[in-house]
């Protein structure tokens, strides 16, 4: 299987290099080749890096970490659709039903985003960046399953072009491209991005609202935690993820699995994740002490805030994006912590946005270079001056 492929690629190489016919399309050829094989040019001079973790392997590890969230997301989409029609489907049937909704979104996201990558790679004559493999999967996982496909195409175009390519491509973007695309859709098409749109079902039974846990409000005088448990959002279902929501973020377990994998393989920086969880928990505890808010999310407490919404997904996969996060350790602690605090402030403080993770991460992405700068200045000031 592999050998004929290698032969074919070697045969084609002439056409794409030097003065070959398809010289302009060399980036496309390179990307195809290194997708299957390790790059053939070897480093000849020092320094030699013995770890073979190049950008492509780096990105494929993130894809592996996303797999649980993806599979559960597809299953849950089908499961929720079944519930909305008044039936409880078994795993396989839910999974197949979910793929009917989710797979087109992922395919459109990859196809359109890849198109823009190729366009810019050909015009600028640089390599097609593997960073897109992750962006193209992260983006659909943050969307509701009911989103129209043309909006997926517009969102990923905006994310790739405005969020990344105009700054010079992967490695030079200061915002997370997937979140940039989502933010664009969120503000452009509020009808398809918020409200009761989270359950994909053709003809649903009355009484299924399709709202997320974060939009639940308790009646006057009742406790938010009690109301949440009664309306199907108990802590354990939120933790396991059998609730409506964006495709990939409902299950806290799958996000934690992915995060642990990324931390063990040292792809993601654990400081950001731990800092973020600490930030959210501490500020949730402080806010719950404020009297008078027991009927809103103010009183929900840290565990509910962690498990509901997309916080764990965002902090594990998007805040840890090595390009848009700070590069200093102290900066990473502050970055993560402030994402947690901001998420909570947006959730409880602004009734227009029930979920704050996306805006919190984008906001802190903007501040990441500043955090690095402050940390570096501070360290330089601690140094013993040259005598």
């Amino acid at each position, binding site marked *: 299987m592999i050998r004929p492929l290698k032969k074919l690629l070697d045969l084609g190489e002439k056409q794409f290099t030097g003065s070959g016919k398809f010289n302009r399309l060399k980036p496309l050829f390179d990307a195809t080749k290194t997708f299957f094989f390790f790059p053939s040019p070897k480093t000849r001079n020092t320094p030699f890096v013995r770890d073979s973790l190049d950008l492509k392997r780096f990105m494929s590890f993130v894809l592996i970490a996303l797999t649980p969230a993806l599979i559960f997301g597809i299953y849950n989409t089908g499961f929720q659709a079944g519930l909305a029609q008044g039936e409880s489907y078994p795993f396989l049937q839910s999974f197949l039903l979910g793929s009917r909704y989710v797979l087109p979104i992922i395919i459109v996201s990859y196809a359109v985003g890849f198109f823009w990558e190729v366009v810019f790679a050909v015009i600028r004559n640089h390599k097609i960046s593997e960073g897109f493999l992750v962006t193209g999967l992260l983006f659909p996982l943050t969307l509701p399953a009911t989103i*129209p496909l*043309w*909006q997926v195409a517009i969102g990923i175009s905006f994310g790739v072009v*405005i969020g990344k390519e*105009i700054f010079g491509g992967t490695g030079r973007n200061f915002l997370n491209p997937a979140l940039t695309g989502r933010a*664009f859709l969120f*503000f*452009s*098409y*509020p*009808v*398809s991005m918020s409200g009761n749109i989270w359950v994909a079902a053709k003809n649903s039974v009355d009484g299924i609202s399709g709202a997320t846990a974060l939009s639940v409000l308790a009646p006057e005088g009742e406790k938010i935690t009690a109301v949440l448990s009664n309306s199907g959002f108990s802590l354990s279902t939120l933790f396991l993820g059998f609730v409506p929501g964006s495709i990939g973020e409902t299950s806290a377990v799958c996000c934690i699995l992915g995060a642990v994998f990324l931390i063990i393989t040292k792809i993601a920086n654990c400081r950001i994740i731990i800092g973020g969880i600490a930030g959210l928990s501490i500020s949730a505890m402080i806010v719950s002490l404020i009297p008078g808010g027991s009927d809103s999310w103010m009183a929900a407490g840290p565990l509910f805030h962690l498990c509901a919404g997309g916080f764990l997904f965002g902090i594990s996969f998007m805040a840890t994006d090595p390009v848009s996060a700070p590069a200093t350790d102290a900066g990473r602690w502050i970055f993560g912590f402030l994402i947690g605090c901001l998420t909570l402030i947006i959730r409880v403080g602004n009734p227009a946005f029930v979920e704050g993770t996306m805006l919190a991460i984008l906001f802190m992405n903007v501040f990441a270079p500043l955090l690095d700068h402050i940390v570096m200045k501070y360290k330089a000031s601690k140094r013993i001056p040259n005598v």
Partner: protein
Amino acid sequence: MPEEKINYREIVTRGIWKENPVAYQVLGICSALAVTVKMSTSIVMGIALTIVTAFSSLIISSLRKKIPSNIRIIVELAIISSLVIITDQVLKAFFYDISKQLSIFVGLIITNCIVLGRAESFALANRPLASFFDGIGNGLGYSLVLVTVAFLRELLGAGKFLGFNIIPQFIFDAGYQNMGLMVLAPGAFFIIGLLVWLKNSLPGISKPETYK
């Protein structure tokens, strides 16, 4: 002073395209964000600014030898604000609805960087007629950007052109939605940025020209 032939057409086209105040000098951005939600307001705003810039340049340029240089900003502002007040009154008298929509932004032409910028950089050093055409050129350049941005924002954000619905109902029925971001100020930022990108990447523009 020796008589030189002044190429008025070149002065005007330079303001409209090559040294476009919004796309090249990046002046007057705040009003470009504020009044471009609709075509009608941005057309009126463009005309108002063109008139104010042209006449303020003309007047300042004819007074340029009389204005003491240490109080020149005050004198320039006095001239510009008189013109702006006249424009504002005319709009209120004849186009009351549009004047209400433009609200404070007509008055704020006084602080629009383009007017003072052309007065400082061109009118104080050139003859009245040349300054007048420079004002017209820059005003038209500003209007061009404003109208383009407003066209895109109104089309994408509200599906309208000059207040008329032009996107037929069956497209909405097929699932099309208006782009809400275009109605917000960031939409104008994105469009202006993309326009500048487009202008700079057109052939023949990419290299900055050297002036003799």
